[in-house]
């Protein structure tokens, strides 16, 4: 590429392309991208179609009785309202908290290196089912550790209480735990965006005499719009899909949540009412589609948060005496949301059972020995899950990076259809889709039943969309001028992808990778149907112990998984930051030789 002289004809074509908007060109790279898109569409749609055919065709005839049955579910309206309210409330709470944490960490001197980089993410690596149990242990009105502690403390001052003061089995308890699991999404998204964002505009605004608030409102927030939209989409998406948390908490609070109803209709009834599960899932799809449409508009219209050809690291804003307050906030948040439930789980493991009357002398690691050290199935499951997480997240993120660029350069209507075809099925109940995978892949010619590969394919299909949201945000941030410069310099599309886009997208992609890794390692929905003794996975084991064992056994396994995942995510944070530093340095001359960037 270094020897390629500027080619006037080619430059002209590019210019015309730009003026006319997007025009699709057949190059080896676009053909490869097209095939990749096709493969992902097939992977997502074929199992779904198989399930739909099976659910709605009775005796060779189309039968939509399920729709009527779905609408006739008692208290459906109440269930929908509860779900909507929990989703919106927790989404709003987590967007605000996540954005504040990210801004403090990326733009102010409250940052404390890797510590503040990783702290807000740790809550995320505790599998939701363990997190939910951790909060039940802490905030149950009677025997919750925290409640007992508070009651003992106020007891010193003569205040006598037998219950509370907190109750996890309540609307605020449920929103609180939901939010904890959404904050990492918004934090990761906003962090990556801030890291990539050209901070010179913010600095210019400050130099021009505008205060912090004006700069935030007029420069930073508009520039962050695509990332905030991406984070909002993911929070709605994942909170609609959360099952463990409402199953543990909402049921106890007498609240009905959509996912619990869906899982009940397929996982606890015979014959499974897959048709009703699909009917209910369509309600979820509608909600996600609306948010997805809005996110699309924001990402594609926004031209603010571009990485220019030149950029440099932001100078941290000095918070002065507020710095200590900001740091206490960050640490306090991490302590409350992560350390507390983890400590509660550790405590229940050490005491062997849940009790507020802790006998410190009786501590033992017996549950850990029994469930982790001496259980060959748990060990095999851990090894399988970690391998699946690494391989699955890598494949999915690379595919997401390629496709996000491919789709950006396609006619909008096409791009939207392909994007939707890949993403929408994953919003269905994972259990329903897992059945589709068996229908398609278990039989001849594939015969993948009970294998590692069927899990890998299912994980990619189910979790790819979450990674794609991260990649879309990252791709939208790379200014098209850079690609044009590269093309003008004579580079092929694949060279441009490899040398321009990939490096610039790395922070966003790594954030997405971490997300997918954690999701895949902890999956317990699809695995429930697809895993077995030939391919055990750890999420399934955790669920198993939760259903039939004790908290202490479940906690010992969940904490092992958490420690391993946390190590991986923290290591990635370090890598991500290094990569960002590298990518924000001026591009090397050879990359841009012959092209006029400015």
């Amino acid at each position: 590429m270094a020897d390629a002289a500027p080619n006037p004809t080619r430059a002209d074509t590019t210019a015309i392309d730009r003026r006319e908007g997007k025009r699709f060109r057949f190059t080896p790279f676009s053909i490869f991208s097209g095939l990749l898109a096709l493969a992902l569409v097939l992977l997502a749609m074929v199992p779904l179609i198989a399930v739909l055919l099976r659910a709605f065709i009775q005796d060779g005839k189309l039968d939509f009785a399920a729709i009527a049955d779905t609408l006739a579910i008692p208290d459906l309206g109440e269930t929908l309202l509860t779900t909507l309210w929990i989703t919106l409330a927790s989404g709003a709470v987590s967007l605000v908290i996540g954005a504040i944490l990210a801004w403090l960490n990326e733009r102010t001197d409250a940052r404390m290196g890797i510590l503040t980089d990783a702290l807000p993410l740790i809550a995320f690596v505790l599998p939701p089912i363990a997190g939910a149990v951790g909060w039940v242990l802490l905030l149950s009105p009677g025997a919750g550790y925290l409640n007992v502690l508070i009651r003992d403390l106020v007891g010193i001052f003569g205040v006598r209480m037998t219950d509370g003061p907190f109750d996890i089995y309540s609307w605020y308890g449920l929103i609180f735990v939901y939010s904890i699991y959404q904050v990492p999404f918004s934090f990761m998204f906003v962090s990556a965006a801030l890291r990539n964002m050209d901070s010179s505009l913010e600095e210019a605004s400050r130099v021009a005499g505008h205060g912090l608030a004006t700069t935030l409102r007029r420069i930073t927030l508009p520039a962050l719009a695509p990332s905030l939209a991406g984070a909002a989409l993911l929070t709605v998406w994942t909170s609609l899909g959360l099952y463990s948390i409402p199953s543990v908490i909402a049921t106890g609070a007498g609240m009905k949540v959509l996912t619990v109803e869906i899982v009940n209709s397929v996982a606890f009834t015979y014959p499974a009412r897959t048709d009703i599960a699909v009917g209910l899932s369509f309600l979820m799809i509608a909600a996600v589609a609306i948010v997805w449409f809005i996110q699309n508009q924001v990402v594609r219209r926004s031209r603010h948060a571009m990485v220019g050809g030149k950029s440099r690291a932001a100078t941290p804003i000095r918070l002065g005496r507020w710095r200590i307050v900001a740091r206490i906030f960050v640490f306090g948040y991490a302590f409350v949301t992560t350390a507390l439930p983890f400590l509660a789980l550790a405590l229940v493991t050490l005491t062997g059972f849940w009790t507020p009357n802790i006998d410190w002398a009786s501590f033992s690691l017996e549950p850990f020995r029994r469930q982790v050290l001496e259980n060959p199935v748990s060990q095999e499951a851990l090894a399988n899950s970690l391998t699946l997480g690494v391989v699955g997240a890598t494949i999915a993120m690379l595919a997401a990076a390629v496709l996000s660029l491919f789709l950006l350069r396609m006619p909008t209507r096409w791009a939207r259809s392909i994007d939707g075809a890949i993403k929408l099925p994953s919003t269905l109940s994972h259990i329903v889709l897992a059945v589709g995978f068996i229908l398609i892949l278990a039989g001849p010619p594939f015969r993948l039943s009970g294998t590692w590969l069927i899990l890998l394919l299912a994980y990619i299909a189910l979790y790819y969309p979450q990674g794609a949201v991260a990649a879309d945000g990252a791709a939208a941030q790379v200014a098209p001028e850079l690609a044009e410069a590269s093309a003008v310099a004579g580079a092929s599309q694949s060279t441009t992808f490899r040398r321009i886009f990939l490096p610039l997208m790395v922070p966003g992609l790594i954030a997405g990778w971490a997300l997918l890794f954690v999701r895949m390692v902890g999956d317990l929905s699809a695995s429930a149907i697809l895993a077995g003794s030939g391919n055990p996975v750890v999420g399934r084991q955790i669920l198993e112990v939760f259903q039939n064992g004790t908290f202490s056994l479940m906690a010992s396994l969940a904490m092992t998984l958490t420690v391993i995942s946390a190590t991986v995510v923290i290591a990635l944070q370090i890598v991500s930051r290094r990569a960002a530093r590298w990518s924000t340095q001026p591009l090397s001359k050879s990359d841009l030789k012959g092209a006029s960037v400015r």
Partner: protein
Amino acid sequence: MFRSMKTRTALAAAALVGAAALVAGCSSSPTSPSTAPAGTGDAALDELIAAAQAEGEVTLYSSLDERIVQQIQTAFQDEYGVQLSYLRATAAEISQRFSAEADADATVADVIVTLNDGFLADGIEQGRIQPLEDADIPGYPGEWLPEEAQMDGLAVVQLTQLGMGFNTDNAPEIETWEDLLDPALTGKVAISSPDSAVHLGLFYVLSEEYGMEFLEALGAQVERVYTSGSQVVEALSSGEAWAAPGTVATGLEIAKGQGAPLGWAIPENTLLSPNVMGLVADSPHPAGARLLSHFLTSEEGLALLNDSPGQVAPSTQAFEAGWLLGAELSADAAEKKAEIVEALGI
């Protein structure tokens, strides 16, 4: 009244099937003297073992407790030199996975042991499950499998008795279902969600036995509704709840072993949740499938299956001590679900 009718129908059906099966079984029962020194003393069984060894690994799909399945795996492999792999999942998951695999012409399971929810019975009707009596299983049905346990081509191999758990520090000793209505337990009774077929079945049985008023009174005692076994066990251990109907003793025993102040009782007229065994018709390892079926209905197999507290081997006596959860009872319970939920006030 209702119950006696149910039992009679079941008994009559079981007797018919059982009688036929006994006749078939006698011809190959292990009475003949040993022929080969290394063999089992039963030529048919020896032949089956050799055939199963030639086929290789046999697969069990089961909703049994994982610890029990692991014990069976070890014992089976040791005894016959045939590898056993298993899928441990909930009954609904097993039915979905098996049906989808069968639809895709990729059957993996050789033998299925699962809740008696009608799935295996449907399988016999569809020809996907082979009636055990027709399978020429050596020694089937043996003397340890009473007539009641042989149901239309399937065999009950395990009975789980739904009991009551209580916190020994706080609750008075409880023995009968009515003890749950003790005013001392008001606001301290944990129940499991009737979204699960087993617990819905129990509430239904209680309403049939003691009337809907009982459920209403029980509903007034309720502290909280839980969705999993571990939640109930831990709520009792911590004193968050003091008593809980519908618990299975296994989980309680683990926590008790770790020092939790727990006790349990199995009241009369409880719900018996059977695990039934079905032989897959077009199983990939026909000899292995029959050998595993033989093992699971043998004295040793049944003992392993019913080794844990709260579980009893399917003896005639055990069947008489409670209501048997089956497709019929589940359907009746499902019909009354709305009424039950309302009576409980949840």
